[in-house]
């Protein structure tokens, strides 16, 4: 005869079950994870969320497979922890792959748990954060494992543009499963411990003979600076999680919510005199556009995205009088601030994120144009550069632009000009708005005339000067209405704040269509 259960015994059993689920991978695996300097899935969630705010879902789900000894390796919750909780008081959905259970392998159950979480997040309109640490598909489950992450890809795509999705890479992520982070809005990689690739070093060596290490193939450095797959690099897990919290503070919970605004902490009327001398009057001298961003927007609010990738463009989030904005700028300090293939991709993707999530765009223009060269043309700069035009033209959020210095030719048009429906365009007195730079223009316009002149150099210089007088200031463009006003640089902050206030409730009717066809 067994004792009938009492409330106490039932409560005890629940506590025991919870304890088992929390240590699902076993003490040895947990110790191994710690030895690598890595936190466990549960510790990561605790470090990431507001204290005590986590609500786990399906902690007892276990797999049903028996092949290759899998029936001996059943753990409550399987290889992922899913649930919801708060960051800065705001609700979101989070999942963490549990490396201590079968290497965090992507299993049927992991797929079902994560899919359910995404469904819930989509219905509730909250962001989804994935803490990734997995060896890849669970091979022993055969096609069930493949089906599992395919379900995730489909949901990542359905959620795209509806709720923000962030992937935090805290371990390996290889093979097909890389497409989930690849589909999400932001990828944050931990230096040293995280790697992403479709095929690993061993396969590459067998197939192509190339010898390459894990880090040089798919480490945080590579994906942040060369491939552009990752948007942020963090030196360790805790800073990766802190960065994710910081990033979330700039994002609305979903596409129906306005971008977050906080009580302004900075003076809206601040006019920093340093801006007036920031841009060198010599058009050949570079400067750091991030200095302009720092001085215009609310102090210490700029969070640069893709900071190491295509550094000739700068994109990121900032606050302007407490309201979140997306900043896009050319960077004269890197590659003269040219637009090239990578910069085009970087700018276009950022614009589309901001537009999808109601974040106004502010563009600071200073670019000598698209980078000339066979490499760029053959690489499809037409296709890539078109993405910038497309993204700006498609965007219906408030759009403001300031031309700091050079705005030439095609680059002038694509960088948020009035012609592609930027709402308000300002220029600084140093602005040059022209079809091309003065020297180049004179070569084309007067080549024949100048060719036989004995005083050719002198005449050329005079023509360049004449061209500069015509187009080397913003006033020609101001006379024709192509820009709205010319500002002292120090006036930029209050002027942008006022324009943003005007446009706060901007509404643009959107023609029904299945979707556009952005050149990819």
């Amino acid at each position: 005869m067994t004792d009938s259960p009492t409330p106490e015994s039932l409560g005890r059993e629940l506590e025991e079950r919870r304890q088992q689920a929390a240590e699902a991978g076993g003490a040895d695996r947990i110790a191994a994870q710690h030895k690598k300097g890595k936190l466990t899935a549960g510790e990561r969630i605790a470090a990431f969320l507001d204290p005590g705010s986590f609500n786990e879902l399906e902690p007892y789900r276990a797999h049903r497979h028996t092949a290759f000894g899998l029936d001996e390796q059943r753990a409550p919750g399987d290889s992922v922890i899913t649930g919801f909780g708060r960051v800065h008081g705001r609700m979101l959905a989070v999942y963490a792959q549990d490396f201590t259970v079968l290497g965090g392998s992507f299993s049927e159950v992991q797929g079902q748990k994560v899919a359910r979480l995404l469904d819930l997040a989509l219905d509730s309109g909250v962001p989804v954060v994935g803490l990734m640490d997995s060896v890849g598909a669970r091979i022993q489950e055969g096609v069930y494992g493949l089906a599992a992450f395919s379900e995730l890809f489909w949901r990542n795509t359905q959620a795209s543009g509806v709720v923000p999705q962030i992937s935090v890479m805290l371990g390996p992520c290889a093979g097909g499963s890389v497409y989930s982070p690849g589909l999400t809005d932001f990828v944050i990689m931990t230096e040293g411990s995280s790697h992403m690739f479709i095929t690993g070093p061993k396969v590459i060596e067998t197939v192509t003979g190339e010898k390459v290490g894990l880090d040089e193939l798919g480490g945080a450095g590579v994906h942040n600076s060369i491939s552009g797959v990752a948007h942020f690099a963090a030196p360790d897990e805790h800073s990766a999680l802190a960065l994710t919290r910081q990033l979330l503070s700039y994002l609305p919970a979903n596409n129906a919510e306005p971008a977050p605004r906080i009580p302004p902490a900075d003076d809206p009327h601040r006019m920093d005199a340093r801006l007036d001398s920031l841009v060198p009057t010599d058009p050949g001298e570079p400067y750091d556009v991030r200095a302009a961003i720092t001085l215009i927007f609310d102090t210490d609010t700029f969070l640069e995205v893709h900071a190491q990738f295509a550094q000739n463009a700068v994109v990121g989030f900032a606050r302007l009088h407490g309201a979140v904005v997306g900043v896009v700028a050319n960077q004269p300090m890197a590659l003269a601030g040219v637009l090239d293939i990578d910069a085009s991709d970087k700018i276009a993707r950022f614009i589309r994120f901001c537009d999808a999530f109601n974040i106004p765009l502010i563009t600071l223009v200073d670019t000598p144009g698209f980078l000339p060269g066979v490499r760029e043309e053959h690489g499809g700069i037409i296709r890539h550069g078109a993405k910038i035009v497309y993204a700006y033209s498609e965007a219906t959020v408030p759009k403001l632009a300031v031309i700091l210095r050079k705005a030439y030719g095609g680059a002038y048009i694509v960088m948020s000009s009035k012609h592609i429906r930027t709402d308000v365009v300002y220029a600084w007195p140093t602005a040059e708005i022209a079809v091309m730079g003065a020297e180049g223009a004179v070569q084309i316009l007067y080549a024949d005339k100048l060719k036989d002149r004995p005083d050719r150099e002198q005449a050329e210089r005079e023509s360049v000067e004449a061209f500069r007088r015509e187009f080397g200031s913003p006033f020609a463009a101001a006379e024709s209405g192509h820009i709205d006003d010319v500002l002292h640089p120090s006036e930029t902050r209050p002027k942008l704040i006022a324009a943003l206030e005007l446009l706060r409730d901007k509404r643009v009717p959107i023609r029904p269509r299945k979707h556009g066809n952005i050149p990819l």
Partner: protein
Amino acid sequence: MKQKHFKVFLDGTEFDVEVQAVDEHGLEVLVNGRTYKVEFEDLDEPHPAAPIPTFSPARPTAVAVAGPLRAPMPGDITQLLVKAGDDVTAGQELLVLEAMKMKNIIRSPRPGKVASIEVAAGQSVNHGDVLIRYEDPA
């Protein structure tokens, strides 16, 4: 302002704030047991001498910096700022590449010793041309 002791709520977090001293230059406050000095700035008198903020170049990565330094874009070398045998630090200015009518300062992606300089001032370079070799191949 007579009251000296406040409870401040910021993003849901509670701070216990006690003003300890105040004059025209600033104040001293005790926040959750720690003392902070707050300085007032006269906004009618901006400080024109304040420097323009600077940023360190983005951290170079192990892979991006392997091998010799190559031209990041086509242009003309106008100035060499180091010579063979020099020890250089990461971020140090190595040469000036004029491209798109702009002076582009090319910095060292990593620390090392310059083995050789493969270009001369006045020379045109193409994308990917070797500019500088380092002694250690890393």
